[in-house]
């Protein structure tokens, strides 16, 4: 076989079930207290700092990290359970999600010890928010076209240029960004970019909000003007950011957030059709449930393989490719099936409101965090085609 894909049928270990109960009880309390409405998927520009701290206090942020940095040294499968329960409940995770999934692990791997000791415990306590500075006005999927410069100066670097489509930059305390420290070489166009830790809310950084078609302001343009970053905020190898990007992507690409983004419309459709659906509704729901079940089994499988120390890079890209295409189609399929839902269905208004929002959200799902086209290129490489 030229292309042996693996999806081991991994089950969540027993300790996950106890944890799941705790997470569900916690979320039920938060809903009862009015922290958020699970029927209202608007968390993207909802900033919930107090909720974030309470999640941290539970020990559910940075939970796989070493204890000396505030972590719990628990497994990726346990983190998986927390993530999926939060996602399905439409909990306002925006403030901590990026730090927990992505920024923390980058710091763990590349930051100097004193920075790890300073920042990681604050992530674990749910106190700080991270943004990711990748895209620029003329550099999106083509990451290595980034032009924002980091020029060497005494004790650090001066940053000049613009990042764009930066989610949460308006509330973020830190950003992990790539800046150009050298021009690309003839042999390697990916050479010359360096990863930096950037402290936000400082002079020299201007954050301009960008409205999205959902009516929310989650995106930003971030303009750097002679912004100073000290030497100890360099993360990893100078000019070598391209070597660092790939290994972490498996974690980023295969989580439950990659197929559950619009899941709420399926729940609401089931509610709307009631206990005795007609054949058309039953078949439609059955096919959708088969999909979400399959996606979850694939996603859990990748999480389990990562926990076991394997590197399922192609499998993770496949999960994101078909997962995001599915969650993008879901609101449209639900709309088809809801067409004949009785006018008297008690949740009809909720369903319609959710559909409107989910349909507006859908286009971004196959763009953010690596477009479908980029992912298929990665899969094709894994298959030995490039």
């Amino acid at each position, binding site marked *: *076989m030229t292309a042996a894909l693996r999806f081991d049928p991994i089950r969540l270990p027993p300790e996950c079930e106890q944890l799941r109960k705790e997470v569900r009880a916690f979320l039920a309390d938060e809903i009862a207290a009015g922290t958020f409405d699970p029927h209202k998927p608007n968390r993207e520009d909802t900033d919930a700092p107090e909720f974030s701290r309470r999640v941290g206090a539970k020990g559910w942020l940075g939970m796989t990290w070493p204890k000396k940095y505030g972590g719990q040294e628990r497994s990726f499968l346990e983190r998986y359970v927390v993530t999926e329960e939060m996602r399905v409940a439409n909990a306002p995770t925006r403030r901590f999600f990026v730090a927990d999934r992505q920024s923390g692990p980058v710091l763990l791997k590349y930051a100097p010890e004193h920075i790890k000791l300073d920042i990681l415990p604050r992530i674990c306590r749910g106190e700080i928010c991270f943004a990711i500075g990748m895209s620029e006005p003329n550099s999106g999927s083509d990451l290595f076209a980034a032009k924002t410069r980091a020029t060497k100066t005494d004790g650090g670097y001066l940053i000049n240029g613009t990042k764009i489509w930066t989610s949460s930059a308006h509330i973020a305390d830190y950003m992990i960004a790539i800046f150009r420290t050298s021009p690309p070489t003839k042999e390697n166009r990916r050479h010359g970019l360096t990863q930096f830790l950037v402290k936000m809310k400082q002079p020299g950084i201007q954050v301009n909000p960008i409205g999205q078609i959902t009516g929310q302001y989650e995106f930003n343009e971030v303009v750097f003007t002679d912004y100073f970053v000290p030497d100890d905020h360099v993360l990893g190898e100078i000019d070598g950011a391209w070597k660092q990007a790939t290994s972490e992507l498996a974690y980023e690409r295969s989580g439950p957030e990659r197929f559950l983004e619009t899941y709420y419309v399926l729940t609401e459709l*089931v509610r709307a059709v009631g206990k005795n659906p007609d054949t058309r509704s*039953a078949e439609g729901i*059955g096919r959708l449930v088969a999909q979400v079940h*399959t996606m979850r089994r694939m996603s859990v499988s990748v999480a389990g393989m990562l926990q076991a120390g394997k590197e399922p890079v192609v499998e993770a890209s496949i999960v994101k490719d078909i997962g995001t295409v599915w969650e993008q189609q879901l609101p449209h399929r639900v709309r088809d099936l809801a067409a004949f839902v009785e006018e008297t269905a008690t949740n009809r208004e909720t369903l319609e409101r959710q559909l409107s929002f989910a349909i507006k959200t859908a286009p971004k799902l196959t763009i953010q965090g690596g477009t479908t086209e980029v992912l*298929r*290129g990665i*899969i094709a490489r894994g298959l030995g085609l*490039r």
Partner: protein
Amino acid sequence: MAESENIVVETAEKIFSDLADAQTINHDKKGEWKAPLWQALTEAGLPLAWVPEDCGGSGASLAEGFAVLSAAGRHAIAVPLAETMLAGWLLAQAKISSPAGEMTVIPAAPKDRITVGADGTLSGRARSVPFAKAAKHFAVLAGNSIALVDASKCRIEAGIGLGGDNSDIVVLDKVEPTATKPAPKGFDQTQLMLMGGVVRSLQIAGALEAMLDISVRYSNERVAFEKKISKFQAVQHNLAKLAGESAAALAAATSAADAIANAKSFDDAVFLEAASAKIRCSEAAEKGGGIAHQVHGAIGFTIEHILHRFSLRALAWRDDFGSESYWAVELGKMVANRGADELWPLVASR
């Protein structure tokens, strides 16, 4: 299960590679490959893998048998191995010993019913029974009874299915069974159909793995517009989508097999696993098989090329033991009946 670590699966793989090479079979117009293949499988104890030793079988685990069937799918095996295994499994549920030779199961469609008369004879009509014509015995589920029936006592209306294998109508008219015993408490036709559905899902997933493999290989050989077609982005993205369909089928099928192998009872969670596998694998057979053909162009449409051995069987297997439409309706009803707020707990139950 790690397949390479298991002697049963290794044995099956070796037999398939030696005696069921798709290219050789495709060129063998007389079907001379069939007898040696079946003989080797029988000598290795594979057709009765799921039959305990005290019922005349080789007593392999469910997991081992499922892995053998994945491999059988990868080789598009066209002898009634899966059917005989399934029949032996059904008979073993009632502790009926399995005879030697080819078998298949009846019914093979969810809505067909075989009934037991007051005199203990069996009657009914079963459609789309795979390999009925090749079978010497049938394992029959009739109401709450499981029976072993001599094939010569039934009327068989032979038919050829989409994949080129026999898919026949079997009529039982007051047939006296060789043996009858009550089915275990709670065992019903739904369980038989789900088990059959998971077997077919594994075969489809295996066939898709093979289709991905031969499509990738072909795209790396075929030159058009002065370069290998694997270098065209449109072809690469199609193959990436085929990999996605293959992966989804593999994950759904192996997960369902694992669920059944470790299940204490056929509860809602097992139903979700098995029905989802049949639905998702059947969908993948259509989408993935379509891409495999597109990549191959005209050559893949010829009888000389091996692609159809995989693509058409995968499509045919969709229909056995309940199609994806049938299971989608059943799954949808189950989900609706449990209620909206019980959907996520079900999905997240394993």
